[in-house]
């Protein structure tokens, strides 16, 4: 237990450091935030000064950082320049879409790649194995944004099987309960809308899940191969146990340890890929929001989004660390 707390404690300087960097990055951007926010509106010098004061821009930088941390921990990131609403609200609105996409991609990556990796390791050296390895290499070497576009060109434009972009067809909207279309449509009993939502999800999920899946497959394969060489596998076979038990209980249990930790880290990285994929597919999530915000110079939003992304990433890495110790009895006890 104290191990856990120690690790948690070590996160603190990291989090502060990250917040500092994010804060500095935004503060040091060229351009006067007040000017940007006001845009073309005409204001008097006093109003401008009042606004500046209101935004705390007249304070020395360390005080600003302090306020920043204080506000941030309360979820207050100021108002979005573009939307004229609190940043947090805007982000929360778009969050479910991102979560839905990320979750689906993760699940797809895990449930496709891990079995493929296991099979590949078991059938090492065969045609099956070689083709899996090649596919994984391709998956890792392909730029996500290009892959998404190719998928759209093939499946949406040429074959017209799937929609080009967006999350759902307007006419099929349903009342929002969780914000996640897959659940909401089922709750509303609208099968047509459910299928529509699924169709919209397919291509982005495949694109986003591809890179993660490819890496996960490679890791599973390598880790499984390493495990299968171990003496305890030989001993298990010498006991006359069935192949299934040897492979999936004895071997996989040990092979999964590094695999799961990598999966946790990769999930954090999915967030980075999120922005691009969401932009390509017109997915109304936080990712595309951030990209827009960058171009609109909507700094409070960019700041908030970056901080949140980073927080999730750090938490995922931390989880990976903990998972590793929990899953490995040798380390745990």
């Amino acid at each position, binding site marked *: 237990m104290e191990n856990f707390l120690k690790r948690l404690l070590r996160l603190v300087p990291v989090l502060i450091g990250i917040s500092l960097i994010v804060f500095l990055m935004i503060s040091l951007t060229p351009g006067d935030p007040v000017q940007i926010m006001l845009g073309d509106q005409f204001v008097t010098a006093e109003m401008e000064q009042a606004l500046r004061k209101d935004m705390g821009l007249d304070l020395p930088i360390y005080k600003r950082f302090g306020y920043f941390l204080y506000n941030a921990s309360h979820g207050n990131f100021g108002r979005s320049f573009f939307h004229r609403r609190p940043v947090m609200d805007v982000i929360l609105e778009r969050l479910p879409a991102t979560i839905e996409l990320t979750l689906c991609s993760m699940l797809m990556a895990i449930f496709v790649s891990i079995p493929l990796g296991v099979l590949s390791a078991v059938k090492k050296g065969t045609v099956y194995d070689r083709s899996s390895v090649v596919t994984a290499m391709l998956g890792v070497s392909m730029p996500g944004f290009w892959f998404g576009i190719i998928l759209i060109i093939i499946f949406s434009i040429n074959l017209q099987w799937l929609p080009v972009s967006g999350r759902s067809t307007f006419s099929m909207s349903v009342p929002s309960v969780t914000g996640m279309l897959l659940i909401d449509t089922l709750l509303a009993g609208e099968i047509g809308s459910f299928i529509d939502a699924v169709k919209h999800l397919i291509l982005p999920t495949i694109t986003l899940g591809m890179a993660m899946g490819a890496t996960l497959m490679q890791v599973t394969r390598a880790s499984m191969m390493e495990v299968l060489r171990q003496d305890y596998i030989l001993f298990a076979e010498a006991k006359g146990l069935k192949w299934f038990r040897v492979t999936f209980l004895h071997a996989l249990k040990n092979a999964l340890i590094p695999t799961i930790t990598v999966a946790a880290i990769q999930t954090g990285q999915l967030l980075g890929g999120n922005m*691009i994929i969401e932009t390509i597919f017109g997915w109304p999530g936080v990712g595309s929001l951030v990209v827009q915000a960058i171009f609109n110079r909507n700094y409070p939003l960019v700041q908030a989004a970056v901080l949140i992304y980073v927080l999730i990433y750090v938490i995922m890495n931390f989880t990976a660390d903990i998972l590793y110790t929990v899953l490995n009895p040798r380390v745990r006890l």
Partner: protein
Amino acid sequence: MKITNTIPSDNISEINGDKIDPSEEKTVSLFSINMNNFLSNRLAVVASLIVIFAVIVSIFSPFFAMHDPNKTDLFIRLQPPAWMEGGDWAHPLGADHLGRDILSRIIFGTRVSIAVGFSVIFIATGIGIFTGLIAGYLRGKFDLVISTIVDILLGFPYLIFAIALMAAMGPGFLNIILALVYKEWVIPCRVVRGETLVVKEIEYVEAAQAIGASKLHIMLKEILPNILSPVIVVATTRMATVIILESSLSFLGLGIQPPTASWGNMVADGREFMLEAWWVSTFAGIAILILVLSMNIASLGLRDAFDPRFSET
């Protein structure tokens, strides 16, 4: 796997698997590249040749390209590739929305990718080796500071960090390199630090200390040559990632700006025309794929050549 000594171990599991005789496990990764091993891996050789070819193309782009990449000709706007109807062998891969020859732009785009890839890796690896050696060998306060910085930087998902930096600094060639280096150096630093920690316990380092060699001498002459092989392997793998990153940034419009041709912004350009002119995006992406794939395969081959123990084939 190459076995030079054919005395098989009697141990069952060592024969059934491809474990190596335990006494070999104790050797440290020495900087000895087994050229024969590398050359026998035909795939890796082909991949390396492709990379070398790309470097040549990037240097001698004007000789390879048939047209000026920035020359616009609205008459041939969105002309399809040569083998399709309406195509023309003067523009083998077609033309983009401003009538610029796609093939020439791809050739010049090689410059961007190779230049960014090599510079970032070169600088980042340099910084990484320097900081890693200090952290690993001198330990103490140095290690604490460096490791904390590394942890903090590692706490950022790569793309977000780069995007945020580019948003802050503005686009441009130098800025991209800077933005990518900022985070990239931690990776070689971690590798170097880890290897240094291992290597410094080896006897010949102790021996050098015993005869009074200076810390700097030890770091440079004893430790460094022996940790180079994993560093090189990591560097080549990372180069592939950096190239994808640069193209992602350019795709978003945060990297190399048009009209300069970068594979990333070419794909972005073509997005608008997905419906009628798929070739504008597609070929640039294929170029990225080929180069990155070759780098990945070559670096795998390198890794096997340095240390056949880890061969999976």
